[in-house]
């Protein structure tokens, strides 16, 4: 899952990002690679729980990768769930029920569940306890169905370069199998390199041969229209 990282399926991947290096491209790449991996004998499904109302953006970016999301929506390979609604307070229960029912309907398909993002819910007033319960329930449901869960979390770096560890982040970090950090360059903005990605192992996971990228040797990426191009730090690899 997620080239160039060789992550296994059935994990809980926590993706953290900052305002100067948003991780939208990671989510898009995970979902589109998952949908493209569908073969005649293997059915793949992707469920996206989104707090931001960005269905049009998903469709536009998917079109650049030659995926017709509308078609996938009708066939049921792609499900988009809006968690927040402006009329009422955000209620996580309906979203959870939708995911559970979709997981039940999937049969033997390979399912990827993406949650984008919970920090917004916390900042707009949802109690952290509710969000924690929601995450735990979702993680349990995905583990039962052997689905991969990808949770995106924004971290804040107000005055220092070190992100502040909020309670929700700590909870998610304890639960995750792998933690992917999308960071800006430590030397500031650049026109050529958009940022860097580090991959850490979760606190309770046994090392299983997945190549990790600590912050000191994080991979650099450059955003293009179709997605991100990765290259090792200090090399150009035909990208630059």
């Amino acid at each position: 899952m997620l080239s160039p990282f060789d992550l296994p399926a059935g994990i809980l991947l926590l993706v953290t990002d900052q305002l100067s290096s948003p991780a939208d491209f990671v989510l898009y790449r995970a979902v589109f690679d998952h949908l493209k991996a569908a073969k005649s004998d293997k059915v793949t499904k992707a469920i996206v729980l989104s707090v931001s109302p960005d269905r049009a953006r998903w469709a536009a970016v998917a079109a650049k990768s030659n995926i017709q999301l509308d078609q996938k929506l009708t066939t049921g390979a792609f499900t988009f769930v809006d968690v927040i609604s402006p009329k009422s307070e955000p209620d996580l229960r309906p979203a959870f029920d939708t995911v559970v029912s979709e997981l039940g309907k999937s049969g033997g398909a390979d399912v990827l569940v993406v949650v984008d993002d919970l920090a917004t819910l916390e900042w707009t007033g949802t109690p952290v306890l509710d969000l924690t319960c929601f995450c735990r329930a979702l993680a349990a449901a995905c583990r039962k169905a052997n689905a991969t869960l990808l949770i995106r979390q924004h971290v804040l770096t107000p005055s220092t370069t070190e992100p502040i560890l909020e309670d929700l982040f700590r909870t998610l970090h304890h639960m995750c199998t792998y933690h992917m950090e999308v960071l800006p360059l430590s030397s500031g903005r650049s026109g050529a390199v958009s940022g860097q990605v580090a991959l850490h192992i979760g606190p309770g996971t046994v090392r299983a041969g997945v190549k990790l990228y600590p912050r000191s040797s994080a991979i650099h990426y450059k955003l293009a229209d179709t997605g991100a191009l990765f290259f090792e730090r200090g090399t150009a690899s035909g990208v630059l």
Partner: protein
Amino acid sequence: MSFKRKTTRQTTTTPLVSTGIHSLDDILGGGIPLSCSLVLTAPDPHSEYDQLVLKYFLAQGLASNQRICVVGSDTENWTAQCMWLPPNSARQIADTVDEDTETQSDEKIKIAWRYEQMKPFQTTVGTSSSTGATADPCCTFDLTTRIPPSVIADAVKAQDLLFLSIDGSKDNLSTTSVLKRLEEVLANGKTQTPLRVCIPDLGSPSWGDLKAHNLLHFLHCLRALLRRYPHACACVSLATEWSADHVATGWYQKLGWMSDGAITLDAFSGNPALAAAFPGLHGLLRIHTLPAPTTLVPASDRFSTLRGTGTGAGSGENNLGFKCTRKRLVFETVHLDVEGGVGERRTTAPPSAVDVQPSIASKKIVAAVVEVELEGTPSPEPVAAPVKKSRKRVGFQSDRPEVYDF
């Protein structure tokens, strides 16, 4: 090097609307895309540059015959203070040229031949460089002209200009009711003309007691509303008490996540040291996030001349600032002054070798001219120094070189 096959992609390019300020349109990548929200913060309590930008936004909408909805308290009076097109548009071009050349007083500068072809150093984009990507061409407004009341009255009569007042009750937050009424306006209007939502002073006391999460919730729901009605866009300016970064942890970043575009206009009014360091500017512009409604990369990264991220690989981003002249508000790149504290570059011819008398261009230093005479030229000993010492002179005496005569 791999060759990229040029595919005919059906790009869903979102239509853009102009903000009324050429340089701000450039920074945003052509203008504000429809269905996007832009949040402006101005932490300086002594000035209101964010409200000025909002007035430009409104005036541009009126000049382009678009629909506008102003949300706030006392909105009619606020709208009446907006700027307008200059009365005589032919004169306006000459006036802007005069303003731009205020520092180029001396035309007889000797320029080395290889640089003669170069254009003068420009810190901002000109008025003629409109890319044509916006639905409405950016008009050049004049800050010395007020909007005619007839224009406002006509727009109100045609229902193109709507005023939404704030009403909050004890059990209903003002933000919730505003969102509900805004949705009614968006649902009932014509969808062919763009609608501009203008919210000056969000979070001011007339909005009632709001907490940080109420404001963030409002901005988030506003963005969701704009996505559902993509013929509209919004420009919001936060009240001063909500504009500073210390309101909540990581406040600017939270604002950036809740909206499509977030910029801060950090004026120098309360900080005289910064004002002295950047004499030509009135403040610095900080960009937190820029709109990218259908693409991964914001359009500004590729198209903005002022930000300078598009040209060449490995180029950094320019620092940006703004200044408000008598007639307009301009955003431009920030450049440090020449070292040594001299106001202008030295362009006078080098003086002759014998009598070195460096001329200091700045008028600040009162004439304390230092006269240095080279060794070798026999200088007569000063016989009787006159009592009136008008100039300080340091003279080398050729027979007693170790003695300096002050």
